[in-house]
Structure formats: structure tokens, C-alpha cells
């Protein structure tokens, strides 16, 4: 009984970041990498994995030290911890593939200032157990990656006619170059937000209708 409750609690923490409090679509945080590196699914995936790694690790470490860190240096400590893991990711990616490193550009380093990570350290990990914090980091990271993939897949599909580099739309498809350009990034994210807004509104309207009839 108690155990199932705990498990569903864990599940909630995990799913929270994925959907209800999706960092990109709902909280509108971490916009720069979201827009800058999503012109292909591969980049989006790499960035997503990097952020998951940094989020989970930094959340874990922050939760570990949360009781001993004095209030005055809290933020400084968090930034230090985050920067450490970002540096690690930076080197790991370089070791894996230089072209990938080039494609992601300075945006790996910029994970340091990604508001999502500092935000989760501050809002969640500093108040919760290590396990919960890891789950939260993972959930948020997955949510972020999900958003990146939403953008990346649309932009790659329409912009190059491919997905993960594989030609999907056929060779005579005319690619819409704009989706690979900066403005296409803004427009695609804007379009997703509009779509979610539309869904939300429709759900609310249906709910209101139901209430009215009952």
C-alpha cells in the first residue's frame, strides 16, 4: 500500500517534467539551445542527452550537499556544480565526435546558464532527497529532450526532407529551407505553442460544456 503510493509519487515527479511542467512548452525556459540546435534531430538528441546528464548529475549532487551548504553561497555552489558537469559533457562530446561538437557550437557551454538546470537545483533538488532529485532531473531532462525532438523533427523533415539523416519525403520533395534558418526556429516553436494553446482551450471548452450540461 505504502509502497505503491511511493511509486506513484515517483512517477508523478517523473511525469511532471515531461508534460505538465514541460520546461520548454510550459515554463518557457532554456529557449536558446531549444531554438539554436534543433535544425536536425541528431543535434537535438545530442543536446537533449547532454542536458539530461547534467540535470541528473547536478540535481543529485545538489541534493547530497543541500543540508551542509549555507544559504549565502547556495547559488554560487550550484553554479559551480553545474559548470563542472557541463565541462565534462563538453569534453565527452569532443571525444566522441568533433563534427558533432562543431554542430552544437558554444551551446554546450551555455548549458551552464540554462535556466532549467539552475531552476531545478534551486526549486527542487535543494529541498528533496537525492532519489527524488534524480527522478526530477531525469523527468525534466526528458521533457526538454521531448521538446527539442518536437522541434528538431519538424525542422529537419520540412527543411531537408530527412529524419536523422535518412531521406523520408523522397528525392523530388522541395525542401523548405526556412526551417533550417533562425526564423524557422522561432516560427516552429511558436507554432507548437499555438497548437498546445489550441488543445488546452478546446479541452477547457469541452469541460465547460460538460459542466453546463450536467
Amino acid at each position, binding site marked *: 500500500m505504502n509502497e505503491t503510493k511511493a511509486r506513484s509519487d515517483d512517477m508523478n515527479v517523473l511525469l511532471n517534467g515531461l508534460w505538465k511542467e514541460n520546461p520548454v512548452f510550459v515554463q518557457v525556459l532554456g529557449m536558446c539551445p531549444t531554438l539554436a540546435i534543433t535544425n536536425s534531430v541528431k543535434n537535438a538528441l545530442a543536446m537533449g542527452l547532454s542536458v539530461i546528464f547534467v540535470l541528473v548529475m547536478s540535481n543529485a549532487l545538489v541534493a547530497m550537499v543541500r543540508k551542509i551548504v549555507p544559504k549565502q553561497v547556495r547559488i554560487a555552489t550550484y553554479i559551480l556544480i553545474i559548470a563542472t558537469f557541463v565541462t565534462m559533457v563538453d569534453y565527452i562530446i569532443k571525444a566522441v565526435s568533433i563534427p558533432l561538437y562543431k554542430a552544437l557550437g558554444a551551446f554546450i557551454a551555455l548549458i551552464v546558464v540554462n535556466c532549467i538546470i539552475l531552476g531545478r537545483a534551486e526549486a527542487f533538488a535543494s529541498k528533496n532527497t537525492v532519489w527524488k532529485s534524480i527522478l526530477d532531473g531525469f523527468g525534466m531532462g526528458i521533457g526538454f529532450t521531448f521538446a527539442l525532438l518536437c522541434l528538431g523533427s519538424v525542422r529537419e523533415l520540412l527543411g531537408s526532407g530527412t529524419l536523422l539523416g535518412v531521406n523520408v519525403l523522397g528525392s*523530388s*520533395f*522541395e525542401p*523548405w*529551407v*526556412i*526551417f533550417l*534558418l533562425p*526564423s*524557422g526556429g522561432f*516560427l516552429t516553436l511558436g507554432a507548437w505553442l499555438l497548437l498546445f494553446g489550441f488543445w488546452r482551450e478546446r479541452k477547457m471548452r469541452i469541460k465547460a460544456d460538460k459542466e453546463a450540461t450536467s
Partner: protein
Amino acid sequence: MSVSVRAIELNTSPHFKAATSTDAIMLNVVYALIPVCAFAVFTFGLSAFLLILTAPLACVLTEHFFCRIAGKESTVGDYSALITGILLALTLPPSLPLWMAAVGGFVSIALGKTLFGGLGQNPFNPALVGRAFLQAAFPVAITTWSPALWPSVWSTDRFSHVLLPTLSLPFMKAETAAGYIHPLSVDGFSGATPLTMMKFEHVNTSFSSLFFGMTPGSTGETSAFLILLCGAYLMYRKMMDWRIPVGVISSAFLLSALFYALAPDKYPPPFFTLCSGGMMLGAVFMASDMVGSPFTPRGVWIYATLIGAVTVTIRVLGGLPEGIMYAILLGNAMTPLINLYTQPRVYGTHRELRNK
């Protein structure tokens, strides 16, 4: 005699109204554009005709569709969507695949207008939003030109044949560049507009060709003469603010005269600047869209000068042969700021008065 009045109307002052109304203004702009369209069809043939049919149709349908979705009365009756469509078509190359023109029309209205709340509320010129989208999405197709089919080619074939890319299948690649001119077999067409020839080869085009529109270019931009004439009609009817075209044209003239004076062999002469590319169409019909332009007396001049100057800067120093579209969009973007900082001084709020 006894007076009896059955229905007396209660109304608030003023009880008089000036005669012009918004739909009348819009309708007159449509009238003013008809000669330009007709000339485009005459110059470029059937493809231009289909283009001028497709883009407005897409715009009007999109507007109607979104009004229906929002549960509002359809606003296609104010003719503004029609203008957007016609102007969009006039800024596209005649051989553009029709499906791309339809995409452009949809984007113009959906992204450029409806999203901001419809007529009058759009910060940017909808037709140019559509064109900028197409330019960024299909940069090759939108810089593929076909020759003006008069006065050198008098064959009437152009009215019965379409240029090959026009009927490309939706979302499919346009026919290859080689096939563009094929059905009309024009000799010696280099596929360049006067602007690209000037920019990349420093080749000048004769004044009369430019002024009367015997050059390749976007469907409706070629005849400076006709555009000025039709613009003059609107200005005469007081349905267009004359200050904007005058401001754009004169600032472009002055700046390009300056460049020309500095290096006549490198930069185009000022009259070339005015009559080539989309300068005239943009200055007369697009910069003057009051929705995206400032309404303060000083603001109008600032806006117009900015557009003229940015256009010449992009043409002369930039990477692209043409810049009027970007210049107008930037002018639109600056409009709220310009309006704010050029608010006229309200009567009775003189600084000296306030100190009293």
C-alpha cells in the same frame, strides 16, 4: 398643418461623416492595381495570369477559413485580403510554381494578419511577410527569372503556354532551370534581372527599358511608369499618403546619388536605383500601407527615409541584389517606436506653459 414624426433618430455628434470609408479605400487600391496586373500578364503571359489568380485566391480563402474557425463574420468583404494577395503575386517571379504562391498567400494571411487579430492590427505588411517566408523557404525558385516577352518577342504563344515550373506538383521540386524558358525559346536570356546584372556584373540597363518595364523581374514590379501612374490616382483620391512614396523615393535617390558620386563605375546611377527592382512597387503600394506605417506627421518622414536608406544600403553594400522587402519589414518593425517618440505636442502643453 400638423407635423408628425414617426421615427426620430437619436444619435451622438458629429452627425456628419466624410465620404471615404475603409472598404471604399481598399476597393480603389484594387482598381489601381488592375492596370499593373494587366501589364504583367501582357509582359509575362499566361503564367503571370495564373499567379495573379492563385495568390489572391489563397489569401481570400485563408481569411475566410480563419474567420469561420473563430466563429466571426467573414471579413473578406473589406477587400484587404484581396489586396494582400494581388500585391503578393506582383512581387513574385512570374515562373514561380503556383503551389508556392498558394503557400505564400496562406502564410501572408495566417502568419501576417489573422494571428494579430485581423485587419488593421498586423504590425508587418502581410504580403511581405508571405514573400519573405517564400524567399527564405525556396530561395532558388524565387530568384529564377523569366524574360519580359515584349517588345522583342511578339509571339502570342505566351498567352497559350505556361512556363514550365508554373504547374509543378505541390511540394515537389520545380522543373529544372534549363526548362524555364523552353516553350517560348527566347534566345540569349541570361536569367538575370537588371539588379543582379548590376550587382554581380556591373551591367547597366537602359532607362527606357527600366521605366516602361521591358525587363525581367517580379511579376508586377517592372514598369515604374505604370506603378507611378496608378499610385498617382490613389494619391489624387486622397486614399494614400503621398508623403511615404515621396519620402522613400527621395531618400533612396539621395543616398544612391551619393554613392554614385563617390564611385560611378562601381555603383548604379540614382535613376537606375529608383526604376529597377521592387523599389517603385514597394515605395508606392507597400510602404504606404497605413497599417504598418506611423501616423504621426514627423514619424511618416522618418519611416520613409529609413526605408529608402536601408534599401540602398542593402543593394549597394549588402549581399543581396534587392533590399526593399527587408527595408519595409524593418520599417514596420520600427513603427511602434517611431509613433511613440514622435507623438505631436498636445495643444496647451508647451514646456513654457507647463512651467507657469
